[in-house]
């Protein structure tokens, strides 16, 4: 009963988000802000799958985003794929990188986080290496100017956001989600409940990387010109982690609220005076780690209000 209700509420919220982002460009003309907001919401839901449910903090999450952007761009440049298919290639590219990184899941806690960070940095230095100029253009960046289409890519981004939300809804209100939460709680107990821990967590990892890769692919399409430093920027990992922590891990709504509040805040003061923004989100992280480790939604949970 609880699950059915959750799924219905969750799908309702997804619908609401879709409608909002379809209509918002009519009344608010900063579509690049709206695009980035959707982007961060999708990334936050993607990171939520692996961090919120399974407890692995992917500090190098941006690696998947960058891999997606580059896979999509290379598919367009070398294989002349249509952009829509290229976005999918972005998702698949990141997914494959995710498979390569699966051994990292054997690590736990901070070990995993650091190793994942190192993995994404390694990826960055490989892509940006001048020796690979013929393939990746090295540090000089990618230009996809002739397929630039901010209108269509906006709606593709929206579909990816919807996809990420639906994925989270079905994880949150299913036995699979329960299995992931069990892995997060205690891997030994989870395997003694009969859960194939390596398999289930790899599936979550794959889903999470796929969503980041799709987002990277559509980002490449939307901006059309980018550099390795933009799509492998550690700042992206950091933002997404903080957004998810702020909103509340393991929920559908938490990552959305976190992205909405903090990304708007970033847009408000972060672009003009980034250091004040950095200072305030640094302080925010400290406060949350010390006092509200489960995010603001946990305050409602404590009062008995269940949020999907």
């Amino acid at each position, binding site marked *: 009963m609880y699950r059915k209700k959750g799924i219905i509420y969750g799908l309702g919220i997804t619908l609401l988000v879709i409608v909002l982002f379809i209509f918002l460009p009519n009344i608010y003309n900063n579509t690049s802000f709206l695009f980035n907001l959707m982007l961060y919401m999708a990334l936050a839901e993607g990171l939520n799958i692996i961090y919120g449910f399974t*407890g692995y*903090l992917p500090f190098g999450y941006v690696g998947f985003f960058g891999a997606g952007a580059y896979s999509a761009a290379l598919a367009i440049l070398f294989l002349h794929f249509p952009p829509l298919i290229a976005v999918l290639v972005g998702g698949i590219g990141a997914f494959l990188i995710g498979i390569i990184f699966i*051994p*990292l899941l*054997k*690590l*736990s*806690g*901070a*070990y995993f*986080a*650091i*190793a994942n*960070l*190192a*993995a994404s*940095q*390694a990826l960055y*230095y*490989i892509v940006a*290496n*001048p*020796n690979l100029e013929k393939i990746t253009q090295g540090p000089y960046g990618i230009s996809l100017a002739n397929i630039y289409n901010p209108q269509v890519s906006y709606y593709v981004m929206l579909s990816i956001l919807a996809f990420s939300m639906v994925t989270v809804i079905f994880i949150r209100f299913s036995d699979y989600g329960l299995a992931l939460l069990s892995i997060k709680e205690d891997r030994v107990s989870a395997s003694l409940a009969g859960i194939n821990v390596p398999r289930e967590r790899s599936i979550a990892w794959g889903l999470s990387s796929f969503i980041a890769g799709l987002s990277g692919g559509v980002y490449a399409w939307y901006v059309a010109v980018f550099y390795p430093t933009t799509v492998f920027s*550690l700042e992206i990992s*950091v933002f997404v*982690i903080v957004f998810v*922590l702020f909103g509340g891990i393991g929920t559908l709504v938490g990552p959305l609220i976190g992205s909405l509040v903090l990304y708007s805040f970033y847009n408000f003061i972060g672009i003009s005076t*980034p*250091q*004040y923004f*950095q*200072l305030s*989100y*640094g*302080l*925010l*992280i*400290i406060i*949350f*780690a*010390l006092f509200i*480790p489960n995010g603001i939604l946990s305050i409602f949970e404590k009062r008995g209000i269940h949020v999907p």
Partner: protein
Amino acid sequence: MLSYALIGGIMYGLYFGLVGMGLNLIFGVMRMINLAHGDFIMLGAFLTYWLYYLFGFNPLIVIPISIVVFLVFGFLMYYVFVPKLLHSKDPEMLSFILFFGVSQVIEAIIILFFGNNQISVPSTIFAKLFNVSTFTLFGNTFPISWLVVSVACIVAFVLIYVYFFYTKLGYATRAIMANRHEALVSGIDVNKVSAIAFGVGIAAASLAGVMGFFMIGAAFPSMGTDLTTISFTIIVLGALGNPLGTVIGGLIYGVAIMLMQTYFSSWTNVLPYLLLIFVILIKPEGLLGKAVRNV
């Protein structure tokens, strides 16, 4: 070429031993990864820069100042954060996130005061002081500053060794590293001893910052993250939780970097990360370490 890379690598390695020292000390005592470690190195560099341009202080004079300032700072910081974290459900993960926040705050404050710029002190500063600019070892010529840094690092290691093995405080620190709970039961003031270790860890990091100009070049506010990752590589190469194992990790790292720079220079950047992933997957407790995983 090879002998240059090896000798240079050893001097480099001594420096990197110092870079990783503080992170490993804090990990050993608190079982926490200080993700702001690299930012304290950066702070040490900025303090050096500031004192040099304001008062013309030589970095050698900055060393004791830096040690005192950051020892006190680390000591106080311990009491603000760590006891509360240790009582939480998942101290390892929460501390990781918290220190990440600390790192952001430090970086932002430095940018607010100094701007988002690269800073450096003249590399000839030691040459002027000692009236020689280079020295020669087995037919290879190195800048004199490398020798100064190497000597300073060795002195620092000896002092840490003495603190660890020849003082009552070091004895208590080692007891906490072996078993925090038993140390508490046996009447050691665990918080105070840990706070001092925390301070020593932060001070060691700042010292690496003071010396950094002469080994890794200019400093800038966002240099911390890379340094933290490199430090982590070094302590994993050495022995996680054993501060003196860091020296070995640093030496391996220094020689590897020098060899890379000599023979495959364009891929040097990737090396620390691949090395880290490789070692952490094969032997997460560190190449020379005993099992401390899942603590």
